[in-house]
């Protein structure tokens, strides 16, 4: 049975190429992808997750305002009664930062996994399959090293 994931770019960020690639990769890997596109608000993510009974919310942010845009995001999800796996990825800080710090920052905001922009979609797919306990030979073969 195909699992549904909600995908979008948060805030007023318009970088669409990354999620276009992600949408295609997750679909090819057997997920039902609800792609909200760019400039998606926290509420839109929550509504879509609820409406589609999604099992994961994948947030993308490239333009450097991810931290501000994600403040309180997990509260909004909780208020909408959405309790799913959440990932965030892309270019998460302004400037030349150290990724480990960034990861901790976003984990403490409530995200289950944090990906940098060198992430290959296959890594995220493999991680999600494990987190959602989807066991396929394919998922086992994939290596996760984020």
């Amino acid at each position, binding site marked *: 049975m195909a699992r549904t994931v909600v995908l979008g770019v948060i805030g*007023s960020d318009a*970088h*669409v*190429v990354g999620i276009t690639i992600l949408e295609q990769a997750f679909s090819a890997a057997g997920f039902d992808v609800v792609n909200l596109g760019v*400039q998606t608000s926290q509420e839109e993510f929550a509504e879509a997750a609820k409406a589609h009974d999604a099992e994961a919310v994948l947030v993308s942010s490239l333009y*450097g305002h991810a931290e*501000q845009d994600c403040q309180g995001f997990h509260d909004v999800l909780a208020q909408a009664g959405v309790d799913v796996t959440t990932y965030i990825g892309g270019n998460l800080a*302004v400037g030349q930062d150290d990724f480990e710090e960034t990861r901790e920052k976003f984990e403490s905001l409530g995200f289950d996994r944090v990906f940098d*922009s060198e992430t290959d979609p296959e890594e995220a797919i493999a991680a999600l399959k494990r987190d959602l306990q989807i066991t396929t030979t394919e998922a086992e073969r994939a290596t996760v090293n984020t």
Partner: protein
Amino acid sequence: MIRDERIPSDELRRIDEELRTNWPTGADVDFEEAIEYHESLPATKQFADVLESADNPLLQPRAGVPRLDDQIELLDYLHTEGGADLLPTTIDSYTRDNEYGKAQTGLEKARETGEATLNGFPAVNHGVEGCRKLIEAVDAPIEVRHGTPDARLLAAITFAGGFQSYEGGPISYNIPYTKEHGLEETMKHWQFVDRLAGAYTERGVRINREPFGPLTGTLVPPSIAIAIGIVECQLAATQGVRSVTPGYGQVGNVVQDVAALRALRKLANEYLPDEVRVTTVFHEWMGGFPPDEARANGVISLGGMTAAIARPDKVITKSPQEFQGVPTKEANAGGLRTTRQVIDMAIEQDIDIDGVDEEQALIERETRCIMDTILRHGDGDVARGTIRAFESGALDVPFAPSDSAAGAVLPVRDDDGRVRIFEWADLEMDEEIKEIHRARLSQRAETEGRDESFRMVADDVDAISDGKLIGRPHGTGGVGNAD
């Protein structure tokens, strides 16, 4: 529906006054006083004059930080240490969304903590006075670079603040930059910006206008970029603008890039009225960069090489840290100097590459075809035609996030690395031209032993950041060593 007609002066005044109440700093704008201010600026800060009179391509980086003093320091550094000829002031994303309140919070936090809490310079919040301090402190012309769909208040404040060049346009700052703004709305807003620039121009202060040529920066076919640039210049010209700089973003194939820059210059001059002075700008690769500064320097240098051959009037440089995030000032200056070295070593050489003329002819045919489509859609009116053509998908931009564009057209590289169209969707184009693209692409498909597909597009999107031009499956393509 909107038409490509000049906004009457009283209408201009009305909008202007209304706008200026949107944020307290708007009150400080005084047109007459601003004209005087511009007249008082030295020749080295008259943007259009500096750009139009240069012998060699001028270099300009991208740069914007929240605080005024930091921005002064940054621009000064890029000028003196990077050798930038023209400077930018990149505006933060909140300002682009007209969220001046949020920008204010960010700016105040930046002032307190010293952190870069905004991804650019909130010029509206800095106001006329802040802008002028910047203009005065830095010894080169400065352009406003942003990505703002409704950039009217920003224009009013920055023009009065002494900036003489303004990037963007109703299409190029809508389609790649936003989801929900309608094209008709951005057309209206940019008519105001252009009309204001025209008002300054009438009074002898030529505000240079630069459409954002690279659009989504990702495998945009040259003819689409050129046509949109020309349309934006036409719209600006109608409002009285007399100095325009349409642009084009490097795709990485030298022949195609040189051909495109030549076609851009030629067609822009042809389509625009004689009284409009056209210069051109070339953007170093605007797509995904390699996650490695050394490799990024290679990408930047290939841009420099292309610029040396095609000789645009201006080159917007990238930094080797493009992949990672906003670059340090050192890296930004590094990108400028790498580009400068390549251009200066190559520009005096006679480098005539075979096939540029044919490629240029193809690009010109395609562009004319798109221009015809637009005019047909607008019954002769370019503003309407653009809106309608985007609506129907007859005009489209690949990877457009905007609801105003179908975003259905898909580009892919041919066997030589030139960007062609794989999925035309509803894009209108001569059947003969489509046939040329198809033939080129089936050649690649054959080389790689696979059909054209979205997979191929995705591979091409990643190719340069993966170290190649063409996203080939492992072990296919390539060339032998025999010369």
